[in-house]
């Protein structure tokens, strides 16, 4: 696990990639790893972050890979990652991709 920012005062959330698909996922308070950053559990302060990390690391055995705690910024009712890298992970490439439809 790695912390991916020097903004140590910012609240943190746990992110990883889904083991089967590689999709970017966030850990919600109920322990689920899901795609919606808005549902991520937010850890404020060091002890809450350590606790979130401990629970998230327990999921590494099967469900997810490349776990990290990342700082986030609250903007009104919304959350956004503090770092550009994590914004791109959250929203996808910033370039136009060829037209594509997910398989049913």
């Amino acid at each position: 696990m790695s912390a991916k920012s020097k903004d140590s005062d910012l609240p943190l959330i746990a992110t990883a990639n889904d083991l089967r698909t590689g999709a970017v996922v966030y850990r919600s308070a109920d322990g689920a790893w899901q795609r919606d950053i808005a549902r991520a559990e937010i850890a404020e302060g060091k002890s809450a972050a350590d606790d979130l990390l401990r629970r998230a690391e327990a999921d590494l055995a099967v469900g997810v890979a490349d776990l990290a705690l990342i700082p986030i910024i609250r903007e009104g009712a919304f959350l956004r990652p503090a770092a550009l890298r994590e914004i791109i992970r959250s929203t996808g490439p910033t370039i136009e991709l060829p037209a594509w439809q997910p398989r049913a």
Partner: protein
Amino acid sequence: MYRYDEFDHDLVRERVAEFSDQVARRLSGELTEDQFKPLRLMNGVYLQLHAYMLRIAVPYGTLSSRQMRTLAHLARTYDRDYGHFTTRQNLQFHWTKLEEAPKMLAELADVEMHCIQTSGNCIRNVTADHFAGASADEIADPRPYAEILRQWSSLHPEFSLLPRKFKLAVIGAPKDRAAIQTHDIGLEVKRNDSGKLGFAVWVGGGQGRTPMIAKKVRDFLPESDLIAYMEAILRIYNLFGRRDNKFKARIKILVHEMGEEEVKAAIEKEFAAIDKTNMVLPRDAVERIERYFAPPPFDTRFNGAPAFDRARETDSEFASFVERNVHPHKMPGYAIATVSLKPIGGTPGDMTSAQMDAVAGIAEQYSFDEVRVSHEQNLVLPHVKLEDLPAVYARLRATGLATANFGLITDIICCPGLDYCSLANARSIPIAQRLSERFADPVRQSDIGELKIKISGCINACGHHHVGHIGILGVDRKGEEFYQITLGGSGDETCSIGEIVGKGFSSDGVIDAVETIVDTYLKLRESPRENFLSAYRRVGEEPFQEALYAHAA
């Protein structure tokens, strides 16, 4: 083209079965990520920002139509309907699912392809001149030697856990179209005074955070000594290469720290000590491989190409395509056609499945079933009849692949950058796209002439920025993307590493900065025949620094 024998088929299929089992064990939790990661990397499966990435080896950049169609099928079936051709002549899919990777590998194996040694500290996919077997200036086809090196290095037990990755490139002409002097080992096929085939051997080139130009350690290595000499180099590297610091582990650092003469002496001593009994490369073995790369059945009755001549006279866009993207072939009546994967405003190296299928069909009908991938992220149809070029052009145009910009300012090399890559610090594709749009006017491009822009999103330099005439390196400065410009780099036979021109620029500023550099060049060149690199080498960086930074002083 080389065709797998029974041994090759078995080896690749066994590897697919082995990896399928490893994936199943990871998904069941039997393997931890730490245990599994080196296994997936050995099979070309990386974990990137948004998904897994599958890197498929295209040995020496040569593909058949059947293989290209399989790549199209994989893009459609398992990915997001496109793929990305890289500066190592490979193809990457950026949206691979781990659970589907074994099926993809099995389908690749059916067409004699794999992902072995596209990652890890081993000898990577051997690259070669993309005009091999076709160009008019060729001394010998480098691909048989690249294939021999591929066979020698595949799963080589002594060289599977090197200090760092190791890259080889081979050319067969004096013109270096494979950037051999920026490889760990670069080989140039040549003939000695008595007409015997052999190699000039360069060692210790590379880009990344410490760019270095390779040193020539042999001006002529006899063909029969190829494998023994490669063994000697690899053994010296394996023995003395640093393992304590991954940033200092490439052979270029060893050459730099030991010194050129000492490294040469160590290689020669090791080479002398090798028992050559089983290490000589016999001519009949080379001939056996050469037969796979025998010239196709060219039509030798060339008596003019009236349809070609007529189209060139009547269709100015076709004439531009011929001028930029078509190169002389060794066989009269034939030409080499470059298929640009750099449409204006597009993503360099990307190709949809429909385009892959289209090129496969064109190659099948007009280029003896062959396609090449260039390290400059374009495709090449190596053997097209001049008389067929108008038809080829029309079909390329119909699928958006007829951009006439080979070697021009919009023919930009660009890594995936922060839009995909977990190592990147900054985005590179949007910079390439905006530069492409800024210089879109074909008349302006033509006036500027040959100018190679190369962009990397981090210091690992997958976008070859160090050898760009104009190189752009994306960096992270306090959380913001910044772009450093280098000038005067070149990856050809006059290889040079670009020099940092000054302070970096914002993502907006770098586009204007490149335009300032280009305008400065246009003002100072002695004539339109003096290209950017020649002008830079004549005047140095000062006029460009003056133009870029004088107002800030």
